[in-house]
């Protein structure tokens, strides 16, 4: 097992696993408690438009994805403030439009694009030094901003209106939060691909949420789980020779299901022996 560490691409992949674990734990926890998983999915898929644009004009697809993710985040932040009751529609439209735009732009760009698949499903084994540098930078931005304004983010997530009466610029924070989601999404596209991003955003915080009821602990636990899923998934995919992104997501999903079944059994067991079943 340890001899795997001799390969540079494996070392890079492992470091990348740790880095996305942090972003999915920190941002994902806020996404889950804000019931915004679908919103994160919308941003991820809309980012495909930016990847298409990058293919057509020949610049870095990650720059394209970042621009589109931030643009979509901003649109969504405006939409939340104007059409809060219609958010599912707004997200759905952006989700599909981004994918359609990306597909068309890639069709229009010259050459054959085999590597498009790596943006859809991730390619952790192709992570370069430059990627790692970018991911560390994005993680730092995310952790510093959330850490610095934790009290405000918590208050707004819990009761935005009350935060507004206290003079907190809630709208500004909504923009910042969605930008952070956008940045985390772009980071994770590299590893699990834009189609699978929401699994890593939702599964670790969801498991953590059932184990503790403090948001800070949820963030730490979700980070640990995210790192665990990425690294274990990576090693499993190496041995089974399967796609790394899909393997990481499958591993997370199976763990989630087993965990839910266990929680359910434990509750029944407790009820059975303490007679607290009120039905």
């Amino acid at each position, binding site marked *: 097992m340890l001899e795997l560490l001799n390969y540079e691409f494996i070392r890079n992949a492992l470091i990348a696993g740790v880095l996305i674990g942090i972003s999915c734990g920190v941002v994902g926890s806020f996404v889950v408690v804000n019931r915004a998983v679908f919103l994160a999915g919308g941003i991820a898929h809309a980012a495909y438009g930016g990847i298409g644009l990058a293919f057509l004009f020949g610049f870095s697809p990650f720059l394209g994805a970042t621009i589109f993710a931030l643009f979509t985040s901003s649109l969504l932040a405006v939409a939340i403030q104007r059409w809060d009751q219609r958010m599912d529609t707004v997200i759905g439209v952006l989700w599909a439009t981004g994918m359609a735009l990306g597909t068309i732009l890639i069709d229009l760009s010259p050459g054959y694009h085999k590597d498009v698949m790596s943006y859809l499903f991730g390619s952790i084994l192709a992570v370069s030094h430059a990627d790692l540098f970018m991911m560390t930078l994005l993680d730092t931005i995310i952790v510093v901003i959330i850490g610095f304004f934790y009290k405000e983010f918590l208050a707004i997530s819990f009761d935005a209106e009350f935060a507004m009466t206290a003079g907190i610029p809630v709208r500004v924070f909504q923009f910042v939060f969605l930008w952070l989601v956008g940045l985390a999404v772009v980071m994770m596209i590299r590893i699990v691909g834009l189609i699978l991003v929401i699994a890593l955003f939702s599964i670790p915080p969801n498991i953590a949420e059932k184990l503790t009821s403090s*948001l800070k602990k949820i963030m730490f636990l979700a980070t640990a789980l995210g790192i665990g899923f990425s690294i274990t998934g990576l090693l499993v995919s190496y041995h089974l020779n399967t796609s790394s992104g899909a393997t990481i997501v499958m591993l997370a999903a199976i763990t989630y299901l087993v965990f839910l079944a266990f929680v359910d059994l434990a509750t029944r067991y407790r009820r059975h022996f303490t007679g607290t079943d009120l039905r």
Partner: protein
Amino acid sequence: MEVDTSLPAVSFDHVWFSYDSHVVLKDVSFSIKDRDFFALIGPNGGGKTTLIKLCLGLLRPGKGNIRIYGKKPEKMRKILGYVPQNPNPNPSFPVSVIEVVLMGRLSRVRIGSRYSKADYEIAIKTLSRVGMREHAESPIHKLSGGQRQRVFLARALATGPRILFLDEPTAGIDAPSQNMLFDLLNELNSTMTIVMVTHDTVAISRYIKTVACVNQRLFLHEEGKITKEMLDATYQCPVDLIAHGIPHRVFDEHNSSSGKSNTSYRESITKSLHKVEGDSYTKKDKKKE
């Protein structure tokens, strides 16, 4: 924060408000005295919550002026306490009681800095005040409806308010909790103005000093100020809202108006308002002066 208590706690000067093209408040002018216990009643969609949100600076009036002790609501945030009707629709939100109460200190702590030790002490003190001290570390979702309402009251009190706004604080909580809440509010009323949206007639009859009915327009039921227009206009309030429980102490014969002349109606209202207005407040205040 010092306030000039000779000025009205809240004053509305010809305030209009509409959501898009739907007019919610029409030319509302009234004022609330310092340390009044003021109830807003009226039909659903009549504009009660909107009126409170205008006072808190959450909404801006389309026309007219709102003043809190003579200043704009946005400048008075530190003295405004707010207990919203339904603070968080996500019941399993991972937050502890003390964390929620600390949010009451948000207007006093700089953005990006942490709550200080003093903030924690204040939060604990307000929790004791509402009888929830021992639940400080409990997750909010483990509490009953009545307990949660007390925590939200503690959060509002942690701000250190001079005016406390409550939006239907007794909706959906059990009777003992309701009584406890009203006794506490009654106590708090000696140091702060209380403005409350309520459908609770018991509370209106027992504790409240002034009642206003909001239905696009605002009609004040206050001793010595009752006019024929106000009475006529008040009929617009759906009677069932204020006819449950023991309405006759508040608005005698509100629902038998058709058979009576306006004069006798006016007399009976004035009489009943004597009881509601509670001489204690007016007299106490006069003594101080």
